[in-house]
């Protein structure tokens, strides 16, 4: 199962953290720090897997991460998950974000943390992969967003967004 999903930027600032196993508040912060520490010092040209540190729970666990522009997406999983499968799941997640936010960038994640959580909840439920079909996820999110339409937009960020996705990258990963 998936133990935790972390997103932080290149400076280690957390942008999203979701734990599917109970950890204390302090441990969660420590895990984020340690994970960032492990992941950030990896070169670009190395594999996307890391064996977990001590915190996240020993040899059975591993970290699977992807680096998109300014953000690291890290999934902490146990041995019952397939490494490459999770790697593509991250890709699906990011592509879905991209669809929902139209050229997603770090700012979207900051200002719509709740929406990102909702999207994630459609993909992963209680640590288990629920849905991997991007269209299906988007449909669910759209259905929920209809409710929101009646409300004025929370905040439009009319800024030039830097796209997180570099298409050529994921096509040939």
């Amino acid at each position, binding site marked *: 199962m998936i133990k935790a999903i972390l997103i932080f930027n290149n400076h280690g600032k957390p942008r999203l953290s979701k734990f599917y196993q109970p950890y204390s*508040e302090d441990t969660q912060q420590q895990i984020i720090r340690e994970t960032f520490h492990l992941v950030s010092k990896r070169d670009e040209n*190395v594999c996307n897997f890391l064996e977990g540190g001590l915190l996240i729970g020993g040899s059975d666990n591993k970290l699977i991460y992807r680096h998109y522009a300014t953000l690291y997406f890290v999934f902490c999983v146990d041995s019952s998950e397939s490494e490459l499968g999770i790697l593509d799941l991250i890709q699906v997640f990011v592509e879905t974000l991209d669809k929902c936010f139209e050229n997603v960038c770090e700012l979207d994640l900051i200002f719509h943390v709740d929406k990102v959580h909702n999207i994630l909840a459609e993909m992963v439920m209680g640590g288990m992969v629920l849905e991997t079909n991007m269209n299906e996820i988007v449909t669910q999110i759209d259905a929920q967003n209809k409710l929101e339409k009646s409300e004025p937009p929370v905040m439009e*960020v009319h800024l030039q967004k830097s796209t997180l996705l570099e298409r050529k990258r994921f096509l040939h990963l």
Partner: protein
Amino acid sequence: MSDIVEKTLTALPGLFLQNQSVGGPAGVKASFSSRLGGLVRGITALTSKHEEEKLIQQELSNLKATVSAPATTLKMMKECMVRLIYCEMLGYDASFGYIHAIKLAQQGNLLEKRVGYLAVSLFLHENHELLLLLVNTVVKDLQSTNLVEVCMALTIVSQIFPREMIPAVLPLIEDKLQHSKEIIRRKAVLALYKFHLIAPNQVQHIHIKFRKALCDRDVGVMAASLHIYFRMIKENPSAYKDLTGSFVTILKQVVGGKLPVDFNYHSVPAPWLQIQLLRILGLLGKDDQRTSELMYDVLDESLRRAELNHNVTYAILFECVHTVYSIYPKSELLEKAAKCIGKFVLSPKINLKYLGLKALTYVIQQDPTLALQHQMTIIECLDHPDPIIKRETLELLYRITNAQNITVIVQKMLEYLHQSKEEYIIVNLVGKIAELAEKYAPDNAWFIQTMNAVFSVGGDVMHPDIPNNFMRLLAEGFDDETEDQQLRLYAVQSYLTLLDVENVFYPQKFLQVMSWVLGEYYYLLDKDTPEEVLTKLYKLLMNASVSSETKAWLIAAVTKLTSQAHSSNIVERLIQEFTISLDTCMRQHAFELKHLRENVELMKSLLPVDKSCEDMVVDASLSFLDGFVAEELSQGAAPYKPHHQRQEEKLSQEKVLNFEPYGLSFSSSGFTGRQSPAGISLGSDISGNSAETGLKETNGLKLEGIKKLWGKEGYLPKKEGKTGDETEAPPVPQESIIMETVDQTLIKKDQCQVLTQSKEEKEKQLLASSLFVGLGSESTVNLLGKADTVSHKFRRKSKIKETKSGETTSAHNRTCSYFSSSSNATYEDGYYLDTLQDRGDKELNKLSLNSGLLDSESLTELPSVEKLSNCKLSSSPSLFTDNSMEGFQPSQSTALSVANETSLAASLLEETSEHMHSDLVEVCHNETISLSSFKIWKDDCLFMVWSVSNKSGLELESADLEIAPAENFKG
């Protein structure tokens, strides 16, 4: 890239200001919602952690004011929650908002509810008490007609839900399995999976429904149910073999492209589903040829179909390979799988290479030749720039290590170790090196040097087993004694050299190992005096960076060496230095050393050379002091009372109920008296004069054993008292009071024996467990219900005679026979008992009793028996409910062998071997009779078995066992 974000963030304030400038209600809204932006901007602009902290604290106090203000609308609350989530994510405590999050989930409209639920799932953990407040909301939402609400409720249930509240929602969720919408069914399945994880027994009854979900017409629901099956099959593969066919069929359909195109991912049909199915098949087919045969075809097809050059096809391939190697082997498939592994290993893509190495590691035990095929790649990977690849390679090498390649592999591992800084890696690798070194070490020098490296790198993070095993290995040695000596000698020499190096800091654990080895084996150097090594140890002792634990090891080494040195200035200096040390522990060691030095003979016998493996015989009962004690007592000295006993006495004066842990006054058979608690210590007082004083004293002095009886669980000793069944020893008729003492001594003696036996630990556990039963409530009455012999009512003398034709006479004459040997009194138990009882009532009040006994039983036996068949057991009826006391007589055949009582008991023990039982302990004996006892713990009761054996050739006519309750217990 990050620069761009920084810039955009700094540009934000202008925007927010614009928003805020809009007047009217919209302006309020905008300003409110932009506060998150403001917060983010503020944080981003800050440079130091400290400033961030200040800002967030301020933000939090604002939020606190807002959320608790009654005027705050739910909509505003929603915004506040998002900000709180943000603050929590950064690691700040926002616990004041938890209750509001729950409120929002309860009261808000859909959108607000969603944020509320989200906040709850992020803030709270499974055991949080506030979660209970959410249960009603969840129940309500589960019943809602709005799909979104149901979905939200299911999501929160699968994230966090209090275990004890599962029954409240379980039926509702079960219903959802029949819901018309597949998304609901799917989420319901996962919610049930969560329940299966946290409370498996609560969802046992719906396993049949899981099967329905597996057959659901919607692929998503079926896929969700696979999570459950994967888990359950992992736990118990044999129970689901019948499903193999279904899984195979599903996989066939998926692989064959029978699913709607929607499920394709990069034109691979439902890859995650395939992965999951392959894993399940791997579990099912493990070591099972028949089941495995079912899946050969589909595996073959999967291998064939997965040819597209995409990441996710490799994921499937990898699972295929894994499954092929997990199930019952089929050569054809293995061949293909091996080829696949080659593809992985040789791939330029580093992720695939990693997985290839992993696969190799997995299959290497079955097929070592595969490693040979790829040996060049493996060698390359050893120098790969990616440390993860390197480590995986080392893992692979670790699996193929043998006596030939050990040196190379360990060298590689050490190289890696020196570069690595991560604790996790160090711990892991150091353990492996140590293991390999012990297994395959080619020679002494190599072994010691490798272990030195392990100790200096592994330092204080490594598993404590490593140094312990190492020292044990040195101490125990192998078959060849000279070889062992050489190994030790080499270790000593190597450590001396290491210690010669100036200004090197060794980890504490390493120093401890060194000091132990030097202390034990320095003599192998054959030097006249250990002056040289003492100097080194002294230097270390004076080193401030050495921990006090290590210093204790060091000084122990010094002590050992001193016994070999005749005189040493250094030792003298050391003693001077440390006898005034502030560290009490060190001071004690120094004093010990000082005194030992004054008695060389003693020192030599205490610290023999090269005897670390031999057990020391310790007379835990301190019986050698008996004479001394007896003499003192006879001169009127007060008997020794252990510290806690004294304290108990004090306590007992305050309490109505006595909880004395000690079995001391158990025997109190003599004293029916309602004695005041103070009276309890009587036994020890009086005992002074009795012939048994010596013994008794022994017990008193035996602090060690006693202390152990005080476990964390509380009054362990009490139990000891009970189990160490009391016996009345009437034979020594000096004063009626003696009885008490005797009892004590017996008990203690019991204890001694038990303790000194190697089973001590086990015994303690047994004791602890049965103790609990008794101590659960304050009155011993509970115990009585369970046929325990322990009871405060022992003393009432109503005799139940239950003589049965059984085998062993469980007559309990340990005391009598025991004492009979010490004093040649006639066995007039009955008489004594009576007198004791009579007097007891009166006397108890006067005498201060040992803190002692909660309950005592005293059993008296009259060994003047000629025939075993006449055995009499007597006890007060109240003691043993349902007359649970029985006497057995051995059958004729066994009776013959009874002379050796142990054999009998052993046979009995055999019969009861499925239960926990204590060892057979001889309680007492004289030339004709010996009595021993043991205890058997059963689920609901404690059996005490006393066996009496007649060692003389004479026939025993009758044996009386009398069990009388002691009333001390009820104060």
